[in-house]
């Protein structure tokens, strides 16, 4: 939670916006001409916009960095397990770590409400789910807290954390957010609802209906779009005639904010400001985190069909984990030695999670009949 004194100032807010726009125009350029632009320099430039990490203590920053590492490793491992034939399918979000961890870090776990989408390993880990839990669900184990093996991997859910169960149809969850926020609001609770989705989801009717409803009733909802430039193979120009998802906010007279989604600190601070706004009755908000998935859409996808290796390479230079590490080191929050250590710890943790999940039983066949309706009604 951001305390009032730590709340980003107006200029802080402007900086976040500026970064976002800049980060994006780089991205857009890299994409449209397919040329190698000076990725590293630009990503440094984007970072340079963030002069400090108000609201984030060094320890908290290190913690979030660790979550990012865990998120990355868990997902890398998912692909391996899938290729080994131990999972039928994998869909992951490597590259989105800053966007996910930065936004989730600004929320109060178990108090605020969160509706993640399939890529949001980072969101769930930040809120308190463990690598083990994530692996249990990934491997369709009975013990998995999300669905106990009923849903495809990465359909998150954890009641205790107010992480709402998600489905596969893109966009449906966007309508639940105003409903959840409505309930919080009429009970006079200060909880904020954050709902996550990709830019492809902004083409759905649900997106319009959800923003419209939330805006009419001024509900405390943050619509978080992780804009990675693609919906499977379709680049974002096929989804929208506006340049930025944030522009879509104009049709509802709400604020649409862009942020460099690969910049952990910019994401965190922007989100913290929006959370604060929503808590104080100034919602809803639309946040667009510009990012990139550095992996194919899923284990079924071959992304070479629709995007160049140069484009990918360019984005790799702006990897959010590398950027965060550099920032931490530059600001004295991490040493190379500590980094090696934390990576080692994360590796152990994830290995343990995989081993545990592999050893855990799948659900019994007849349990398929349970929980269609409440028992005994």
């Amino acid at each position: 939670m951001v305390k009032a004194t730590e709340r980003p100032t107006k200029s802080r807010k402007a900086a976040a916006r500026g970064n976002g726009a800049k980060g994006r125009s780089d991205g857009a350029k890299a994409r449209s001409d397919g040329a190698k632009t000076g990725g590293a320099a630009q990503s440094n430039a984007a970072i340079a916009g963030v002069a400090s990490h108000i609201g984030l203590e060094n320890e908290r920053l290190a913690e979030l960095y660790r979550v990012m590492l865990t998120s990355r490793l868990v997902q890398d491992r998912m692909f391996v397990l899938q290729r080994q034939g131990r999972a039928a399918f994998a869909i992951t979000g490597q590259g989105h770590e800053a966007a996910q961890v930065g936004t989730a870090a600004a929320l109060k776990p178990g108090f605020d409400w969160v509706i993640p989408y399939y890529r949001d390993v980072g969101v769930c880990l930040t809120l308190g789910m463990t690598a083990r839990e994530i692996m249990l669900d990934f491997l369709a184990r009975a013990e998995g807290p999300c669905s106990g093996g009923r849903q495809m991997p990465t359909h998150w859910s954890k009641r205790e954390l107010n992480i709402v169960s998600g489905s596969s149809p893109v966009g449906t969850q966007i309508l639940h957010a105003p409903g959840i926020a409505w309930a919080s609001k009429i009970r006079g609770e200060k909880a904020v609802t954050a709902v996550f989705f990709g830019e492809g989801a902004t083409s759905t009717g649900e997106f319009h209906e959800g923003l419209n409803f939330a805006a009419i009733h001024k509900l405390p909802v943050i619509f978080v779009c992780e804009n990675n430039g693609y919906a499977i193979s379709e680049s974002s120009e096929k989804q929208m005639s506006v340049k930025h998802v944030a522009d879509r906010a104009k049709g509802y007279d709400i604020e649409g904010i862009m942020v460099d989604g690969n910049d952990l600190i910019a994401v965190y601070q922007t989100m913290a400001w929006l959370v604060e706004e929503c808590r104080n009755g100034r919602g809803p908000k639309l946040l667009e985190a510009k990012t990139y998935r550095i992996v194919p859409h899923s284990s079924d996808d071959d992304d070479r069909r629709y995007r160049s290796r140069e484009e990918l390479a360019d984005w790799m230079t702006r990897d959010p984990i590398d950027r965060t590490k550099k920032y931490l080191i530059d600001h004295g929050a991490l040493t190379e030695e500590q980094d090696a250590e934390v990576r080692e710890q994360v590796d152990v943790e994830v290995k343990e999670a995989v081993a545990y999940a592999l050893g855990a039983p799948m659900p019994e066949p007849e349990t398929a009949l349970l929980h269609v309706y409440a028992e005994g009604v």
Partner: protein
Amino acid sequence: MAERSVIEAVRDGMSEMMAADERIFILGEDVQQGGVFRATEGFLDKFGPQRVVDTPLAEASIVGVAIGAALNGLLPIAEIQFADFIHPAMDQILSEASRLRYRSVGTWTCPLVIRTPWGGGIHGALYHSQSIESIYAHIPGLKVVTPAFPEDYKGMIKSAIEDPDPVLFLEHKKLYRSIKTEIPEGDYRTPIGPAAVRREGDDVTIFAYGLMLHESLKAAEEVAGEGTNCEVVDLRCLRPLDKETILSSAKKTGKVLVVYEDNLTGGFGAEIVAIVAQEAFEYLDAPIMRLAGPDIPTMPYAPPLEHFYMPDAAKIAAAIRELAAY
């Protein structure tokens, strides 16, 4: 005992529940003004704008927002102005409301009532006359009720609101004001599930619900004078379905007529037939008959066309005679 019309019964049921439990709220189009059928007449004054919410004209959002509210502890009653306009909300009902409990292994639940007026015979033409029960009664995780009498409308709307799972509550438009019957005093419930035998008989069983139940009762009266004694079963609830009552009546009479207003092919009545054909086969004395709307878009407007479409007491009586003579 007081006399109540169907619309009054629904209104009273909701109002009594809302007065007793603050978590219950209504959302839909024009509900503050009372709703186009006046089901929520006076509610705005009684319960205020936070519990009687006028929504934008967007059915997916009516159900989707209701689901969100249900997830966060409220008990929403979503009104869809006409059943014909529920289709944009199909995804929310099927993929979300009906599957939340299952997909989360029971950790999330979705206690939600969706009320909507259905059925024809009211000059509503193609888009104000549809039967939607076959689509929804097919969905595991959802409950679908189709009462015929004011007593059940009141008792079942209360049960629906208390139900821990999503309930699609179908109100037949032509019954709203056309029948008025005595209903019990006090805070009673009609359980969601059991069918009701409305008329006992030995010769032929008629299974029906909604408006067709009343037409079937009329037809049964008509043929009674001719010596054919019909049993008329009011299914009331299509999901869960009361197989026990269905089978015991089918076994008793050995002749079964299923009547529904929806298009014949693929209508929910086929399910009743399938249950009887598999589980009461040995007791059957005649082919299982269906009488339903023809397979044309439901339903054309001009009175001759609408009349052509609608099953009614005369058509039902003719089918009974055929079956009785078999």
